[in-house]
């Protein structure tokens, strides 16, 4: 076994040596690193466009995006640990699981690194958290479309990825609240859990169509809910009778948007979110304060709302949803 130990020793020495060379690379520019949940997903590839664009458009600041190859909170935390060691100037993070990052982010802030987060309004150890919109408003926005499309009367239902997904539940509740003003609208079997599985959403939608033959409205929760609902609606041949709205991605949903099984989707553009996170990081590093009513110069973030977060930090909200239907889905390459 001696030779095997030699191999281990060699790789040990080699990795120490490589680490020594690695530490020598430093930059004069301010360095802002965006850490996403996982690399290679369409959503975060689109976000990277925004991140890179900000660095290209602004001098004196270097931006890049990193993320684990697999969606694992431990890997994301390890990447952030190493970025703290490298003493970057600011971190812009889309947490896989906000609670697991509290400790490491507290340490980042303790070492003078600015911490900006996205989609983590429960996080305590952050300086600025960016939300594309108020979740209740987003839900109400879908409900408005559905009510309009149904002529303000009839049965409707809502979907969520899971009851544990806080934002999805907030959308469903926001929709329900909006619908309360129309006495003719009847909510049946609310908050169906699709578990982020298009097949499950399809099965559920089929069951609902069977149980409530007169149902007209569907509000999707997770981004794939509308796909499952759309397939069930298409199979039942009810494209024109039903109104399906929800979170969705243009390319994934395009076939159902074309056939009319899904009437409209909305989402927030990750490219803008990535761009705006870097704006916030830049402003924060320059000591500028963000106030309610500020215009960040990006569509949807022209009149942001700033509120206190659960910790020391602040939450910045835009109204950055993008509506997409059969006419304009092809404008979005993801």
């Amino acid at each position, binding site marked *: *076994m001696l*030779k*095997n*130990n030699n*191999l*281990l*020793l060699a*790789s*040990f020495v080699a*990795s*120490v040596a*490589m*680490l*020594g060379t*690695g*530490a020598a*690379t430093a930059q004069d520019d301010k360095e802002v690193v965006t850490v996403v949940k996982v*690399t*290679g997903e369409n959503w975060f590839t689109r976000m990277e466009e925004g991140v890179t664009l900000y660095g290209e458009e602004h001098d004196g600041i270097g931006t*890049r995006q*990193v*993320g*684990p*190859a*697999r969606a*694992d*909170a*431990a*890997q994301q*935390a*390890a*990447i952030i*640990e*190493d*970025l*703290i*060691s*490298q003493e970057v100037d600011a971190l812009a993070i889309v947490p896989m*699981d906000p*609670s*697991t*990052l*509290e*400790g*490491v982010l*507290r*340490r980042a802030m303790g*070492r003078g690194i600015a911490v900006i987060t996205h989609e983590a309004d429960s996080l*305590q150890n952050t300086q600025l958290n960016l939300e594309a919109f108020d979740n209740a408003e987003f839900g109400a926005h879908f409900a408005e479309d559905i009510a309009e499309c149904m002529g303000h009367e009839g049965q409707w239902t809502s979907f969520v990825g*899971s*009851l*544990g997904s806080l934002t999805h539940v907030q959308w469903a509740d926001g929709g329900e609240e909006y619908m309360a003003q129309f006495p003719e609208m009847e909510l049946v079997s609310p908050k169906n859990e699709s578990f982020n599985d298009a097949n499950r959403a399809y099965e559920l939608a089929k069951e609902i169509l069977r149980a409530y033959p007169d149902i007209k409205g569907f509000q999707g929760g997770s981004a794939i809910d509308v796909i499952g609902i759309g397939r069930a609606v298409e199979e039942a041949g009810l494209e024109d009778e039903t109104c399906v709205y929800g979170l969705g991605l243009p390319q994934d949903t395009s076939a159902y948007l074309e056939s009319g099984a899904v009437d409209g989707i909305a989402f927030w553009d990750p490219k803008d979110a990535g761009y705006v996170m870097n704006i916030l990081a830049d402003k924060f590093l320059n000591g500028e304060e963000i106030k309610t009513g500020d215009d960040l110069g990006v569509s949807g973030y022209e009149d942001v709302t700033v509120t206190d977060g659960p910790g020391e930090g602040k939450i910045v909200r835009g109204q950055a949803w993008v509506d997409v239907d059969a006419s304009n889905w092809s404008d979005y390459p993801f």
Partner: protein
Amino acid sequence: MTLYNFQSMGTQIPELGLLALGVMLAMISGRGGIDLSGIALANLSGVVAFMIAPMIIAPAVSPVGFLLSFSAIALGVGVIGGAINGMLIGYAGMTPIIVTLGTQLLFTGIAVGVTGGSALQLGYIPVIDDFGNMPLWGVPRTFGVFILIALALAVLLRYTRFGVHLFLMGSNATAARFAGMRVKSILFRTYLLAGVLASIAGIIIAARTSSVKWDYGTSYVLVAILIAVMAGVRPEGGYGRVTCVVLSAIALQLLSSFFNFMQISNFFRDCAWGLMLLLFLANTRVEWSDYVPAILRGRGE
């Protein structure tokens, strides 16, 4: 390279290192021994301890007492989980890879069931956070704990009857049985020990992240095996050294941090890990010098 760099890496090593030690024990025991359930048991330990510990001592009353009761319950879960693996493999004679794959799903399933899938937050408890994140005399405390446990394990394997029998059994189970060793009991205790190591990893994860969740570190299964194989532990059983596993865990962490520092894609990291696993496995099997011409070997026939 600053002191902080090393401290940062030091805090990242223990959880993986402990899981790798568990894998090493399982591998030494032979018969295709492996423990795939490590990280699942670690998470389950954290989850169960988090649910029960506040009922015994509230963290606000006595943070140290909370940490102790938290650790005790987590270790208890580790013992139970390890015992389940040990019973099925040792006494029921089932194949380790299938058993631990099954218990991995079982432990994960229980953790999802009791938490409903969401993370449980410990909140900011200074004592626990210090334990997880703050160095003592320049050394991260969790890293210190890891080294102490490794030392204790090394002594156990080297100087106790259990340790000696474990290696003999791993080399040749049949011979060990006919020599009068209690093979079943040794297997049982081996997997029990691996379970305890996993639950210590669970405590460290909880302290470091101030939270417990069922799917933390799902990528650790492969990496723990890689560390063990890289350390020269024989997958067929009968050989493995604790020192090498510790060094191997450190080397892998250095390499991983190096990839991050050099901004190398994280997909390449997975690829590199796979390649290294195969390379080190091959290295235990192949006598490389056979392929070197005799004249280069520097000695005649």
